[in-house]
């Protein structure tokens, strides 16, 4: 795993996704209210636009999720899977992410 620093922990507002670019990967980085970090592909699979970081973060029955800002499909922050019954086949790639002191890092295999 190669770890890359992408931003300061403080700069990441809770429930406000941030877009990052790591070795050509377009990644949406999220910090939830409870301090967990998640990283998913930033490209919305429905519209192919690079916008997932701009979606609203919340939960569905306790599962942390982000809703695509384009047409509202809801994706699990944990697994990247679309939780809408009508689009079960959609998934976003997930990335390793961790906090090292004041810095947030993304891990690529």
């Amino acid at each position, binding site marked *: 795993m190669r770890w890359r620093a992408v931003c300061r922990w403080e700069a990441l507002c*809770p429930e406000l996704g941030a877009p990052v*670019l790591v070795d050509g990967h377009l990644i949406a980085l999220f910090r939830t209210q409870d301090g967990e970090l998640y990283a998913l592909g930033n490209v919305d699979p429905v519209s192919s636009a690079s916008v997932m970081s701009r979606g*609203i973060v919340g939960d569905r029955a306790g599962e942390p999720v982000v809703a695509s800002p384009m047409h509202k499909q809801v994706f699990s922050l944990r697994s990247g899977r679309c939780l809408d*019954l009508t689009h079960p086949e959609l998934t976003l790639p997930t990335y390793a992410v961790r906090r090292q002191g004041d810095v947030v890092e993304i891990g690529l295999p």
Partner: protein
Amino acid sequence: MTRTLVVVGYGMVGHRFVTAFRARDHERRWRLIVLGEERHPAYDRVGLSSYLDGRGLADLCLDRGELAGDPAVDRRLGVAAVSIDRDARTVRTSTGAVVRYDALVLATGSRPFVPPVPGHDLPGCFAYRTVDDLDRIRAASAEARDGVVVGGGLLGLEAANALRLLGLRTQVVEMADWLMPLQVDEGGGRTLGRLVERLGLVVRTGNGTGAVEAGQDGRPRAVRLTDGTEIPADLVVFSAGIRARDELARAAGLPVGERGGVLVDETCRTEDPRVWAVGECAAVAGRTYGLVAPGYAMAETVVDRLLGGSAAFDGADPATKLKLLGVDVASFGDAHSATPGALDVVHANAASGTYTKLVLSDDARTLLGGVLVGDTRAYPTLRALLGRPLPASPEQVLAPAGGGGLSADAVPDEATVCSCHNVTKGDVTAAITQHGLTDVAGVKRCTLAGTGCGSCVPMLGGLLAGCGVEPDRALCEHFRHTRAELYEIVRATGITTFSELVRAHGTGRGCDICKPVVASILAGLAGGHVLSEDQAGLQDTNDRFLANIQRNGTYSVVPRIPGGEITPEKLITIGEVARDFGLYTKITGGQRIDLFGARVEQLPLIWRRLVDAGFESGHAYGKALRTVKSCVGTDWCRYGVGDSVAMAIRLELRYRGLRAPHKVKAGVSGCARECAEARSKDFGVIATEKGWNLYVGGNGGFTPRHAELLAADLDDRSLIALVDRFLMFYIRTADRLQRTAAWIEAMEGGLEHLRAVVVDDSLGIAEELEAAVERHVGGYADEWAGVLADPEKLARFVSFVNSPDVPDPTIRFTTERGQIRPSGPGGPVPLPLPAVRPEAVRA
């Protein structure tokens, strides 16, 4: 070990097969090779006609690229299978490649049948099946005036409508004595014919096509009918039925059905255990199906079988419902009364153009089928009753208001209510009671009913009511309250953040439904900038970037132009900004100018220039006041009796930035000629000799409605007081995303009640409502100026937080008519459209 599955044909059923297969084969036991003869990824053929009314191919696309990145799928487009060698278990393709299979699925669909009449192959004669066909028809239509469609069936009428929309004078030739002879009976077909002719198409029934006559240019000139008549035609579309594409199977020695089609058993397997066929090319137990729903059911059957299950295709009775050219037609079951002893009960009304027929068993009790033309509201219930005893007398069932006499209660438990997903009434009611479901969305989630063609959704509502469920007004899973209740909670408690509110009055961390609602409530009551750290994460993307997101992830910029009045200097600034940032520029329907194609990191730079030139946010992104449209009024117009421009500007500046349950639009006209279309707005003002008339509750959009007069002959001050009260009362009490029209319609007592509250102050809150607006006016500040002054907010306007200078590489443009437009992978997304197209269902 990984086995190889070859799928031949990537149309609607092939696509469904591949996605369903991939969704279930998690362990990737199979590798899929998909051969598609068409160059396009799978698209919605059922919606093909909409390709001609401006929807692009991408809108029809079923394949949204989710397979492109799937390592288990090798999708080859523009590559046909040319032969099958069953002994070697290989398929040869049009590129010369040979692929080996462990299992082979044929999904080759069908081809249009073109009767071999003289001239059928002239340039200018077309079929109606593929996107490429439509491209050719469109290109030829530019030079054509008279169109003829051969075949008056379902597809023929669709093709005729398409030609009509392309501006051709169009005639439909049908051999049978009436239109849609396969689906509807004579009475229904004749009613349909009259309705279609009202729309300007010429229908010629009882007549075959003898020949297509060529003119000197070698293109069609006329169609000669079998009775000798010639009708002018420079473009001919054949839509005279379809034939299964079973040629690969035939050549490989596999049996085919009597009337064509790859012969398969009820598991959709051919005589060769490794070869399967699904969709229109398959003849299941000898029978082919020309509709997509049975094909989907076949696809699911084969997926299940290949993955070790025991599903079977249990036959499907084609039922059809369509609304084309604005004419509703439905037929189901034994529409032609073919059952021995069947009785018909017919209701026809020539004046209103409706025709209904029920086909009953010989004892007049069991419903065997039916035809509905002109009014199909009874269709979902009747379809569910097929093959069952009628719960009421046929007369009651056919009562006007489309089966109004018949409620969902009349349907027995075993009856299928959702044919798309094969869900019975019993399944739905069990889900409602077991899971305590309270709304249609819940039923959809639990049972999938209603998530296909949507035609059963009204019935689901009825079933909820039947289970004694009061419609649930809870906002979402996080709040049991309505928007109005939350508004009151925030007003009473003085809560200022979402976290506090959800902790005290809700559960969880919210979602894309409740967060924007709370954001809007807080914006009105707590104040502060909408992008403050507390509020930014609650905003929909448009509010979060104070701009409107576009299909490729760029944004549009709409500066406010109050009343539509603008100085030349400001126009020049907009032009310069658009030019310098290369933005697409368009005049909107709201009397202002929209600049499209800005990347997030450009938004602050653009707004810096606009704000410096005296512009401010136009809130095109917000559920807020949009525009107050005006006409020129007394200043210039020789008819004007009131200064509409001045009043429009005054109103727009007063209510700018006011957050509401939905967007709010207004208009002011200088006299009753109404050039500002004020009565199509949430509030509209029209000048009279004595002052102003105030109209409320109008809108365009999905369900247009004219505003109604609330008060007449008002002076300036009373006009503004009434608008203040009206808007603030709306903001406090409407549901989420409820425009003023729907709000007034849902209000107990309707307009009368509204007038009592707003004009007569029956609740004694008028002063308070006006004061709330006054506070808003006092606290107003331009949102964009606020962002430009705050480095922390500005920092969020980047494509990448770790590389702020790198633009988003997925955004690309091409040019059209001298301006940019999105191109590349930022593909468009179809919105769920209202069901205005034919749909097929299993009965």
